[in-house]
């Protein structure tokens, strides 16, 4: 059973049963999952054929090489790839896994899903209001993701959302978020361009309190993890939020573009040093990139993926399910 919205969001004491909103039905979730798997598989024929070919013929030295190649090409990185392949190889050689294509493939999926589950936890929205901070490198899809999350929180749980346009640097950033706020039915708090990002977050939380809104999502400017002063600024924004509400931000998510290579690991590392990242949103999975870097992030940093984005419309967001992710990688 794939992870549901109810499982990925921890809403704490909120009674959403009486919100009058129907949680997504099995049929709907299967449909969305199928669409997602299709979009994930769109250009994966090559990978599928490689994996199928290598696993359904003999199990020999070439099998392991081809598997290595496939995982590297998925951006899993050399260390994680080596770990996974060696583990599987050992199990097959020891007889723990029988040396036939199907069994090996199923075990591989299990191993990949295990790796992808590193640090697994739901998105913590236990607060009144709950504060969610979005961070990440330029161009990874923070603002679009915020729009999607806001829409899903409203649609799935009937929650009211306030968006904080704390990207006061990028040209027309507030306008961009304003458009998403409108589409998602959320309120927007912004300042003049060049204003203090911390102040915007502060105002948004105050406004949410005043209006009894459920969730505040704070957008921040894209920044490279190598820019010390910008990372310091981010730490400051977090501090402002924490000062205002002791448990906040309740959740900090980093957006990672699925096309990102090994640098994704560095990004996750350094952003966590600045603001204690709780989870990853893996974006742009509707392309041909496999997003394997999240395996490395979960495996080496213990930071779990919580959401995946696969498209530019409000609906194109899904709770991360490790087995689905692993299976979609090898789907026929």
């Amino acid at each position: 059973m794939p992870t549901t919205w109810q499982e990925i969001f921890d809403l704490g004491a909120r009674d959403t049963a009486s919100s009058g909103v129907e949680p997504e039905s099995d049929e709907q979730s299967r449909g969305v999952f199928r669409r997602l798997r299709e979009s994930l598989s769109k250009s994966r024929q090559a990978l599928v054929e490689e994996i199928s070919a290598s696993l359904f013929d003999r199990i020999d030295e070439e099998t392991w090489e081809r598997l290595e190649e496939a995982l590297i090409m998925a951006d899993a990185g050399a260390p994680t790839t080596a770990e996974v392949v060696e583990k599987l190889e050992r199990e097959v050689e020891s007889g723990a896994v029988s040396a036939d294509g199907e069994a090996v493939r199923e075990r591989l999926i299990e191993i990949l899903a295990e790796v992808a589950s590193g640090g697994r936890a739901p998105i913590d929205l236990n607060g009144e209001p709950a504060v969610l901070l979005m961070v990440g490198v330029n161009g990874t899809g923070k603002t679009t993701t915020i729009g999607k999350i806001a829409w899903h929180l409203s649609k799935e749980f009937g929650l009211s959302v306030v968006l904080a346009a704390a990207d006061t640097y990028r040209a027309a950033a507030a306008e961009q978020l304003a458009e998403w706020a409108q589409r998602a039915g959320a309120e927007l708090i912004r300042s003049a361009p060049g204003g203090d990002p911390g102040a915007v977050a502060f105002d948004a939380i105050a406004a949410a309190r005043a209006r009894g809104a459920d969730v505040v999502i704070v957008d921040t400017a894209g920044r490279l993890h190598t820019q010390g002063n910008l990372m310091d600024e981010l730490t400051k924004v977090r501090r402002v939020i924490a000062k205002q509400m002791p448990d906040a931000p309740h959740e900090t998510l980093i957006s990672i573009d699925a096309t990102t290579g090994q640098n994704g690991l560095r990004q996750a590392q350094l952003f966590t040093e600045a603001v204690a990242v709780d989870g990853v949103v893996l974006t742009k999975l509707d392309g041909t990139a496999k997003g394997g870097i999240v395996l490395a992030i979960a495996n080496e940093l213990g930071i779990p993926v919580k959401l995946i984005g696969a498209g530019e419309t409000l609906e194109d967001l899904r709770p991360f399910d490790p087995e689905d992710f692993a299976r979609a990688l090898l789907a026929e």
Partner: protein
Amino acid sequence: MFDQLSDRLQATLSEVRSRGKLNEGDVDAAMREIRLALLEADVNFKVVKSFAKTLKERCLGADVLESLDPGQQVVKIVNEELTGLMGGTGRDLAFASKGPTVILMAGLQGSGKTTACAKLARHLGESGKNVALAACDVYRPAAVDQLVTVGERAGAHVYEQGTDADPVEIAAWALDRAREDERDVLIVDTAGRLHIDENLMDELAKIRKRIKPHDVLLVVDAMTGQDAVGVAESFAETAEFDGVVMTKLDGDARGGAALSVKAVTGKPIFFASTGEKLEAFDRFHPDRMASRILGMGDMLSLIEKAEQQVDERQAEDLQKKLEGDRFTLEDFLQQMRQVRKMGPLSGLIGMMPGMGAMKQLKNAEIDEGELDRVEAIILSMTPLERANPAIIKGSRRKRIAAGSGTKIQQVNQLVKQFDQMRKMMRQMISGQQPSPEQLMQMSGGAPRPKYRRR
């Protein structure tokens, strides 16, 4: 990081020195390390495979110089090959002979197209060109607003029709306006699109057909991983791009995508975008990218940029000062080469006027390998550095050492010796005999005695 690769190679090749030549086993072991380094750098797996093949051939043919650390020698070869691969072929930005030059920008979502458009506009505007922009991204919320804002900052007019018109029509209209307004350049921004999105790729092809750009640039994020190849191939087929703009190079992504795209499409990388400010935009340097991919860092670009302004002034002043002492490392290199052509140096030294009396020097063993090394070091210097070795500090020393496969101390030694040699030459010109100490310093220390004296 360079040290890491070089050290790893050295450990792998520790047996080589005594053998003098790299055999196949050595090279295979070295190739494994190189492949790992390149994969770490996000170079595409298949590109790494084929590159390693070419590299292996070159390494097998190479002699291991006795004075050079085999690990460093291999790195030197890799660096050269990478630089060659990413530079060389391909044309420059094409300009129209009359009417506006049309430049079409394309790429994935979030790659940095809009910012790159503004930067390119500013860059071209610097040479006095009248540059305008066309806002053809009607999908991304506030994309038009963003381009208008950054366009203004760049001093370029933005032609836009909001988000209700068709991008192909906007592009055509903008070109007409640009012609009327007698613009020199029109840069067309487009929406980010997936290379597998048929509709949007069709749209891009239509835009291209309609406005017939002189240059189509693919904007690629430096942190892109293995996917870069698929993306580049698709865009090459549909958009037939002429060159690449690499963005977000101010991060610490090693940037292997640059090599992948070049290797697979043959298209050159025109520009490097190195920061969020509009000024952070340079012509692409293949040698720096090669060092960066190998993990040798590209701090050089940043530091050198800062030093550059001071350098140019310094160089001018110094040039005037050096009028009297014009002898540069370049000259030294030429002289040395000419002399070596004549035969082993040990024989020649005795022939030099005034040297006859210097018995110690006559018996000195001249290490020809040392001279090879000196040549390599000088060849890794820029013309500016050869003319003015005083500027060779920190990062430059590192780069020169890396490029020549030598150690930083050896670079230091050469610069010091050259200085002393120049002093000595001035003395000789003015009629003074160089002292034995000076000669000793110049040859790098006391000649190796054959017997230990008590």
